[in-house]
């Protein structure tokens, strides 16, 4: 890594902040894309039958949770863990700690983004279920929640790893 370009990364604090940013940023990108996909699909149905708006809204917010998970990880990393380390260590975060926080943020950053998009696809297909077979709308929620589980475990993985990093 040429120092001229990436020298600022040789700083634990910056690396930790980068991790936190990616956690919330990428997860929110995924959620935006996922909810967007569902919104597009749902608008078509709403233009014909506004009475389904309630169920469609539930479908649309389901891929939004990943963004929230990313936000929680960001909150714990940037507003709790990093200040905690800075206070305990004379306002310095060493390279190892910074890298560790960065790594710990990766699961929700990656799995959050990709699972939100995948879930958005399932939910968009669920719009068709609600259009054609309204009585089966429960099943369309179920199929979305199956995807949700992988976001939850990567969220927990990130969170538990961040919790495990302690001041030296």
């Amino acid at each position: 890594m040429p120092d001229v370009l990436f020298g600022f990364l040789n700083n634990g604090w910056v690396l930790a902040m980068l991790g936190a940013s990616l956690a919330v940023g990428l997860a929110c990108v995924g959620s935006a894309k996922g909810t967007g996909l569902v919104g597009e699909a749902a608008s078509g149905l709403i233009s014909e039958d506004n009475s389904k708006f309630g169920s469609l809204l539930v479908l649309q917010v389901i891929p939004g949770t990943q963004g929230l998970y990313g936000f929680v990880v960001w909150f714990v990393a940037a507003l709790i863990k990093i200040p905690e380390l800075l206070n305990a260590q004379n306002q310095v975060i060493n390279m190892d700690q910074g890298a560790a926080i960065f790594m710990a943020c990766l699961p929700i950053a990656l799995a959050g983004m990709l699972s939100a998009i995948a879930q958005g696809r399932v939910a968009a297909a669920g719009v068709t279920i609600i259009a054609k077979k309204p009585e089966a709308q429960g099943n369309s929620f179920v199929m979305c929640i199956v995807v949700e589980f992988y976001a939850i475990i990567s969220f927990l993985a990130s969170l538990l790893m961040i919790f495990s990093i302690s001041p030296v």
Partner: protein
Amino acid sequence: MAIVRMKHIRLVALESDRAQILELFQRVGCVQVDSQADKLADPEWTELVSKPETELEAARSGVAVLRNALEALAKYADVKESFVKKLFTARPEMTLTELQKESFLSEMTVAAGEIMEGAHRISALAAEKGRLENSLASLSPWINLDIPLDYTGSDVLTFSAGLCPPSADIDEMKRLLREESYAEAFLVSRTETESYVAVLYHPGAEEETAGILKSFGFSRMDFKDITGTAAHNIGQLRERIKAVGRETEEAKKILLDYAPGAAGLRQAFDALTVRLQREEAAERLLVSGKVFLLEGWAPESVIPSLVKILERYECAYESRDPEPDEEPPVLLQSGGRFRKMVESLSMVTGMYALPKYHNIDPNPLIAPFYILFFGMMYADVAYGLVLATLGFLVTRKGKPKGMMGNAFRLMQYCGLSAVAFGFVFGGFFSDIVTVLGSTFFNAEWAFPTLWVSPTDSANNGPMTVLIFSLVLGAIQLITGMVIKMYIMIRDGHPVAAVLEVVPWWLFFASIALTVTVGGTYWIFAGLVLLVLTQGYSKKGVFGKLFGGITKLYDITSYLSDVLSYSRLMALGLAGGVIGSVFNSLGAMPASIPVAGPVIFLVIFAAGHSFNFAINIIGTYVHAARLQYIEYFSKFYDSPGEPFKPLQAGTKYVDIVERGETPQKAQS
């Protein structure tokens, strides 16, 4: 607590009694009338029987008229029942006789017809308004043209009006026309998309003028039958639009007059639906001369009351046990003290599939696990209380039936279970007590934790709860295997039952011994036992041995089954952490005077409402999934055909039986 025993029934009775018998069956609500379409394909049968004449079409259109009328009222007179209000109000109770009063029905049908007339009138007026507005839009650019639109010119003059694209240079066109064909063009008006042009020329210069106009993209406007100037027409159109608006309001007012009668229309809708259900059953009968033939199923327990009904008529009937190769329809029914609790689990079972007739009623078997798992994943005293209260209120006030009834009843138990686990893991709006203490009172408060908090990593909380989850999983899986053994022994395969299940337990025990006592030979002994026993159904020594070895692969499926229960810890923890982040977020601006606590309350309310709702969906699905995938795979045999009796299925009223009528069995 079981799958209800069914009897196949056959009935031959007089056509003239058909309507009465079907209505009585509908009141009992316990007879499934099967279709006999296969007989009509058999030439021997078709010589004897034919399809009955029913009033199915009339019944269908009757229901459709009332449905459309109710929809029209909802659309134009704003007669809607809000979902929340529906949840908390019980439906009126009526007997079938009260519901089906002929005079009332015909009155309501007439009213529905009038409502539909009004609705048609409103939509016709809306269509006319649309047409008028279109004409208005196309005429308004010509408002400044004071020549009648039907004017075409005289012997020495031709008049023409039309449109040019916005790119056309009108001044250039005017110049060319004036110089080359002695014609005159006027720009009437101009919009972003169109220029509106009127042209006057000598008939003799028709060709040149047309040529020039064409080169500027001029296209003639056809005003069709419009006479008089644009301004005059526009005035007329505006007046007509106003009149249409008035007429629409009048038509809507007529519909509004019907709005108070919506309750009656709903009753009539139900009455006609009940009639339709009877006609649909009648459609499945066969007729021969003056008698009809009914075939179907009924629970064994209601046969005596059916016999009591049929004794009043001239008829012949028989009932018999299902034959071994038949799949009778499945009805799950529970008894005893926990009947309602157990039956509410039909919601979970119903979403998967019913068991086959000869399998086992899963509801009592999943009830303890489902409620326990839900509570563990939703573990929060406050959330649980809200959930249980909601379930309780709706169940008491709204008296929902069927799937909704089960859902809200189950909600009570799951809520209470969440309260219990909330105390165990110390969750009350996550950690609101601690946050309140530290932010506003500068005190170290904590909600009591009976065991350990899954977020408390200092006390090894996550690990403890994870192991607890896996142990619960192992208990459920072993229960599933016991049930499998029970079913196999009940069905007369005791040896197979022991061979299928017990070696696995010994194998699990061997793993436990290896871990606790030590010595790898335990686990080897377990493996050998599996290889020797699991191929028992195969033929030949090598077949058995090979079968046993391939069964070793199932070890991985048991492993993944147990690990799957880690979601009990994962979902509970995720919900708790998100809630606590909302609490901390809210506490951040708390030091600001006045505004601080207000912001705190807003974030608290919004955040926890969101967390509450999103977690219900997740918890419901994951608690159910553990039953479907991990538990059911051990013993469940599905899908069974659901029992669909002829009964009075209503939407807006509850049918009750008063006085001397056959006892209605639970279904």
